[in-house]
């Protein structure tokens, strides 16, 4: 009985931890790498000044530090939640526990030169959070549709091993292109024109969250119950890749737009 209880505790712990991971290292690296290529010289210089590293270096910082005591609250900032009216409502209705809310908050608090009134360490932490959260809120498993949508995504099998829908999207870059490196992803995904990028970046984090809520609705239909990833049709794989392309590129462009706005002269 005790063994069973321990097993249940372990499974719950795994489920909780996986549900909060969003993009794996690869996804975050890709979106941050794309963002870096779209920074203005001013924003690039400021980011280097405060972070001492490139953007991908800190793209998973929020995952690494979420279990440390001072940063436990940031565990709730990895997803954005939209209800059926497409309002951003936050985790269990707490609007502050939402990636879009936090991105908007930090952007507002730092823009118009206000970052200059912050300590260097606070600016650095805020940047690390932005790099991660803008990426996360574009992950199909972290642009969350609340229960009123009645959506239930199917798990998928990868080489016979059952993977939850959530976990699949988190690691989808590895599954789709296991041999690609960062440069190859960026070449394949950073394909939008300046005019398109301007349109993609229009609005704020709330608008982006709502757009994500709309655009990933279709992903629930990509595969049926019991599907095996390695046996998906070309069309199904193309759908997944197109979603990855769009979500990772949009995340990169919007992160760059956020940082460019904060550090605009």
């Amino acid at each position, binding site marked *: 009985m005790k063994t069973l209880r321990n097993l249940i505790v372990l499974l719950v712990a795994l489920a909780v*931890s996986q549900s909060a991971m969003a993009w*794996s*290292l690869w996804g975050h690296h890709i979106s941050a790498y794309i963002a870096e290529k779209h920074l203005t010289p001013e924003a690039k210089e400021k980011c280097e000044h405060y972070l001492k590293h490139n953007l991908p270096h800190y793209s998973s910082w929020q995952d690494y530090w*979420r279990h440390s005591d001072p940063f436990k609250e940031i565990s709730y900032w990895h997803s954005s939640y939209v209800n059926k009216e497409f309002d951003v409502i936050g985790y269990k209705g707490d609007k502050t526990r939402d990636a879009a809310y936090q991105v908007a908050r930090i952007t507002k608090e730092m823009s118009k030169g206000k970052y200059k009134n912050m300590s260097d360490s606070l600016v650095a932490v805020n940047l690390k959070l932005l790099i991660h959260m803008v990426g996360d809120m574009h992950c199909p498993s972290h642009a969350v549709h609340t229960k009123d949508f009645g959506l239930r995504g199917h798990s998928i099998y990868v080489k016979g091993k059952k993977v939850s829908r959530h976990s699949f999207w988190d*690691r989808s870059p590895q599954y789709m292109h296991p041999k690609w490196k960062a*440069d190859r992803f960026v070449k394949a995904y950073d394909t939008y024109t300046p005019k398109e990028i301007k349109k993609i970046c229009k609005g704020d984090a709330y608008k982006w969250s709502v757009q994500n809520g709309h655009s990933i609705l279709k992903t629930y239909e990509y595969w049926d119950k019991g599907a095996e990833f390695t046996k998906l049709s070309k069309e199904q794989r193309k759908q997944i890749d197109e979603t990855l392309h769009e979500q990772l590129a949009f995340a990169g462009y919007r992160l760059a737009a956020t940082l460019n706005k904060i550090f605009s002269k």
Partner: protein
Amino acid sequence: MKKISILAFALALIANSALAFNNFGHQAIASLADKYMTDNAKAEVKAILKSDMIRTSTWLNTLRKKPGLAHTNGWHTTTLDANGKSTTTAANDGVVELEKAIAVLRDRANQSDSLVQASLRTVIHLVGDLHCISHIYIEGNEATKGFNYKSWNELTAEGKGFYCSKTFDASWYRLWESRFAGRYSFFTPQYYGDDIDLFANEKKAEYEKGTPRFWVENVGEDVVRALETFQPGAVVPVQMTERQETVHNRCMAKAAYRLAALLNDIFK
């Protein structure tokens, strides 16, 4: 139980003969070193290697697997005395073999081409290895030879063990060899090399000074400091582990600056 003990012992042996910085880490060090080498040194190195530094940087790891060359396993580590001083003269110790290889390069006019090439490959690898914290042993301090501890939260570029859990077994070796460098293996060595080039404007000149023995003693100080946090069986909070990335990156940067300075001096 006996079988488990044998398996554990075998695993410990494997762990102890593991790579210093993983191959990607070595490549990043070589890339950063290349950035600070003189044109003359670059040209000579290229002529001797008939390849580039990045590709060559992992050669010594392949050598150890060849028949009759198992003794080179010891080259990847060095042992300091109980006071943290590098006084060893033992054959197959990393710093001793590094000094031998440097001596061959300085006397290259009187040496065979193949020996000069092998010595250069050895120098490129060992300067990196001897800046890896888990490859510096200290006499009388068994923990320096590797152990497991408990940690939180793992994340690797390979996507293995990517989920978070409360505690799990972690390895002193893995912490310094691949935990941090592994996160960057998704990029090119050049990109990672540039990212760890953190001291170019301040301490680089200071770091370049000294001899290989001074360098390993210097890394030994970091080993002692790290062991204040990491001990066999200790439970280490994630923030303490993450803070070690600064130490790890500084060691890599030092290795690159020192390798460049050494080669610039040899090929001046």
